[in-house]
């Protein structure tokens, strides 16, 4: 694993962390407001369906979390599970899966 690649992963982890810090604050506020008086599908979809703003927000959130989660799990795979290079491939698979599952969920609530 080259030092340059490690440095790129470090930068990607920090840049996505900064994006996610904003997204998570918005998400926590939305969760706490949305669950007041119970959570219904109609309430969620009324907010999200046809909204370009929520669509763009959640798509950004999904891509950032997929990259951030993948890099984090790669580190854990190396440090705690002794996976070596395999950790990178597993993490890439996890990231790709999270992007697909996450964007599918965004389409489901926005389109």
């Amino acid at each position, binding site marked *: 694993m080259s030092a340059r690649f490690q440095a790129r992963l470090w930068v990607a982890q*920090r840049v996505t962390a*900064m994006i996610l810090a904003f997204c*998570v604050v918005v998400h926590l506020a939305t969760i706490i*407001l949305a669950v007041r008086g119970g959570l219904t599908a109609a309430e969620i979809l009324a907010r999200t369906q046809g909204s370009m703003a929520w669509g763009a927000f959640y798509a950004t959130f999904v891509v950032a979390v997929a990259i951030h989660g993948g890099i984090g799990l790669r580190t854990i795979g190396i440090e705690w599970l002794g996976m070596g290079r395999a950790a990178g491939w597993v993490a890439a698979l996890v990231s790709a899966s999270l992007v697909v599952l996450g964007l599918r*969920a965004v389409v489901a609530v926005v389109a």
Partner: protein
Amino acid sequence: MSVARNHPAWWAFMVHRVTGIALALFLPAHFWLLASALEGEAALENKLRWTEQPLVIAGEWLLVIALAAHLAGGLRVLALEFLPWRDWQKTLAALAAGFALAAGLAFALAR
């Protein structure tokens, strides 16, 4: 307990890592539930009714705390790496824990 573990920075690191794993494991289920809206509002509503069980609500409460803790812990890491605040570690760790607890309580009271 070793000296290294009996230190706020070690606990901050461990909480950040454990909450990160919990959130990564939860995400596919979260996306899967939301994607049920592809089959219509009723399908999403059906899954949301399932989440009204006390144990599921308790799990959601823990996840909201985990998300808030991971956010606060992440902001702590960014502050330590990008700002000259090293002497403030304990204060930052305490603020991180306080924010996580406050978000969790807000969710518990609102749900």
